């Protein structure tokens, strides 16, 4: 079954605006990761946040994790047209299957 669900499914914003994407998951996790996929390409790792962390930053990216609500958010500040892509959250469970489980992604369109 699907572990992660991203929200919204699609998001369209203007350059310079902030983009926020949310992810909810079902089981307890070891870590949660965000990936980016440009059209026609493979997924590229953006950031990892461990279950004992609440917030993490990387450049224009800010990720939060709320394990009590089983949710995470990815904020991209001052978006650029080049940020146009699909963004996926992926969870690694703290027990059981040794693999990342991905959600269905948020398709972000940044208008120049």
């Amino acid at each position, binding site marked *: 079954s699907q572990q992660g669900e991203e929200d919204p499914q699609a998001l369209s914003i203007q350059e310079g605006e902030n983009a926020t994407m949310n992810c909810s998951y079902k089981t307890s996790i070891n870590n949660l990761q965000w990936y980016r996929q440009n059209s026609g390409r493979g997924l590229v790792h953006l950031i990892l946040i461990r279950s004992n962390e609440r917030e993490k930053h990387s450049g224009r990216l800010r990720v939060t994790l709320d394990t009590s609500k089983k949710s995470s958010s990815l904020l991209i500040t001052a978006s650029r047209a080049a940020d146009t892509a699909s963004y996926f959250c992926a969870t690694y469970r703290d027990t059981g299957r*040794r693999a990342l489980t991905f959600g269905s992604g948020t398709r972000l369109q940044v208008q120049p």
Partner: protein
Amino acid sequence: DTAVSQTPKYLVTQMGNDKSIKCEQNLGHDTMYWYKQDSKKFLKIMFSYNNKELIINETVPNRFSPKSPDKAHLNLHINSLELGDSAVYFCASSQEGGPGTGINTIYFGEGSWLTVV
């Protein structure tokens, strides 16, 4: 150098044929995966190998058979292709951080676009 490379990138074939997708990683990782991405972009794991040993085998038809000759290679062979097999297949690799630390990062190949007609 490409970290995870898979071939072919595009594959168009007729129903009933058998085809293979090859994957190689030069990162020295001990775990490799095959993921399938459907037309709605949903990415689902199919198989996982750790040091040539099958770790994960999701509910995939047995027409799909992975082969890992060594830890740097994980090939995917598909028998009797069906229309529903049309998808993008991604090979990936990772290095676990040690017991209890979980997977750090997965590195993906560029995908193999399979179209069954």
